[in-house]
């Protein structure tokens, strides 16, 4: 299973300059790719284009060799799951269990009843994301970080081959972030993951491949050791960085 983007160009309606200008990338199972860049650099827009939600001005996005727009919605989401950065809370307040179950494929449309296999998969996913104790709570009563976990569970419950995560730890505390890192590492051998994040340390800890988005282009790509260096980051973020050893673990901080 593979997601390919070739020479993506995208301009926001009404804008003069393209936000993304010739982006090419590939996501495949077996590793985590991190996408970094400044605010407004087009990371979330790129995720929307990769998922087929937005159409690029030019270029192509293919899922297993076929344009992503030609897949039926059900077939597409079975292969490719997306966890978006902001999800509005609906008026109808479903429980955590109901919200995660919405991600299950093949649920009876009329009765909504789950088969034993679907129930087992649902419970397993709730357990994986440590949501079992919250399963009966309405989503509107959860904190931002807990809600992010619910939406991640709703994406993971159908066991996708590819996963696009748009800032999955932006509302998480350090303990939850560390657990997210270990979960992503466990998933990575079977699932291709694109991790969009502002957290340089998160990228350093769990990504095997890092892309730095700047000025509508991929300014740098490679291993974390190659890309997450003070020399590469300074022109993108406009400030100095210091990379150091933290008990045998590489770390990077702005100075």
């Amino acid at each position, binding site marked *: 299973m593979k997601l390919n983007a070739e020479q993506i160009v995208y301009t926001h309606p009404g804008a003069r300059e393209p936000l993304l200008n010739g982006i090419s990338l590939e996501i495949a199972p077996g590793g985590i790719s991190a996408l970094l860049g400044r605010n407004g650099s087009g990371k979330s827009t790129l995720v*929307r284009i990769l*998922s*087929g*939600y937005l159409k690029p001005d030019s270029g192509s996005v293919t899922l297993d060799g076929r344009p992503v727009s030609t897949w039926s*919605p*059900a077939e*597409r*989401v079975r292969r490719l*799951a*997306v*966890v*978006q950065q902001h*999800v*509005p809370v*609906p*008026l*109808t*307040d*479903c*429980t955590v269990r*109901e919200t995660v179950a*919405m*991600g299950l*494929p093949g*649920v009876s*449309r*009329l009765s*909504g009843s789950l088969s034993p296999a679907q129930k087992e998969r649902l419970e397993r996913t709730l357990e994986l994301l440590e949501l079992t104790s919250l399963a009966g709570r*309405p989503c509107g*009563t959860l904190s931002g970080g807990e809600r992010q976990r619910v*939406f991640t569970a*709703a*994406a993971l419950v159908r066991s996708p081959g590819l996963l696009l995560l748009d800032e999955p730890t932006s509302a998480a505390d350090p303990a939850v972030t560390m657990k997210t890192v270990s979960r992503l590492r466990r998933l990575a051998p079977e699932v291709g993951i694109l991790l969009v994040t502002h957290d340089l340390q998160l990228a350093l800890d769990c990504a095997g491949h890092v892309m730095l988005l700047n000025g509508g282009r991929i300014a740098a790509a490679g291993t974390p050791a190659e890309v997450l260096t003070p020399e590469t980051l300074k022109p993108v973020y406009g400030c100095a960085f210091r990379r150091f050893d933290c008990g045998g673990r590489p770390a990077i901080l702005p100075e």
Partner: protein
Amino acid sequence: MKTARVILIYLAAALAAAVCGVLFGAARIPLNEFVQDGVLNPIVELRIVRTASAAVVGASLAVSGLVFQAVLRNALAEPFLLGVSGGAGLGAAGAIILGFGAWGFMSVPLFALLGAVVANLLVFAAVRKRTAEELLLGGVMIGTLASSLLMVLITFSHSHDMAGVIWWMLGSVQNVDPARQLAPAAVLLCAAMVFLLVRSRDIDLLAFGPEYAWNHGVDARTMTVLLLALASLLAAVTVSMAGIIGFCGLVVPHVIRRLHGGSHRKILVPAALAGAVFLMLADILGRVVSPVRELPVGMVTAAVGCPVFLWILNRSRAGT
């Protein structure tokens, strides 16, 4: 509470309201006079049609409002939002003021339906992106335009025509034709319910926003347009039957959501039944409180529904 038990409770309430709707009215009819010589008392017959009309109109408005609020993710969304009330008002007023009412009993409802559908189509045609937000704004614009044209018509109309237009706009279920209005509206409501129940997961997902729905396998743009068009059609048909009855489509969905929450698959049928109960009771109240000159049902729905809704609002907040 289990969904089946909730539905049974609302069904029992709807049956009780329907029985009251047939039993009570301006005239007191003893039970032994309901059927005489094998013929149904004409007043009882009128009450049956009227009660059934209130049930269908109430259910349609509640379901339409539920869909509007979920898809537009707006607590103030109601069934007439996409130009339906303005268009229907303009159509009905046009029929009354321009003299088309003389063509027959059905001309005013038909023109109202035509006005509602045309206004609705104009909204869909005028808005290029057809996102929920843009459709909502387009609906407000077309609705305002239709209302201002309605004011122009009323300004240049005779006083008796003006009274007819205003009475029609207040909303009433007393003049519904059972074969040509009630039956088609009931069929549309049943068909819409089946479609909405089958698509309830899509409604649940759209309530989280179009991008979230897309990421879970819903063709969000197509489904948004389809659901809003269906909800508007339900509203347009009720307007053509009973005029503009406000409040029911706004408040009943809120009450049902607050009482039962959860997936739309669970609350669609209770919302329809609660809407039916609400309008049947409002209609009974309108004719019992003021038997000589009935209170318009739209006025009763607001007068009764407002305090009930505020009570439920405060009760559920206290509970959280």
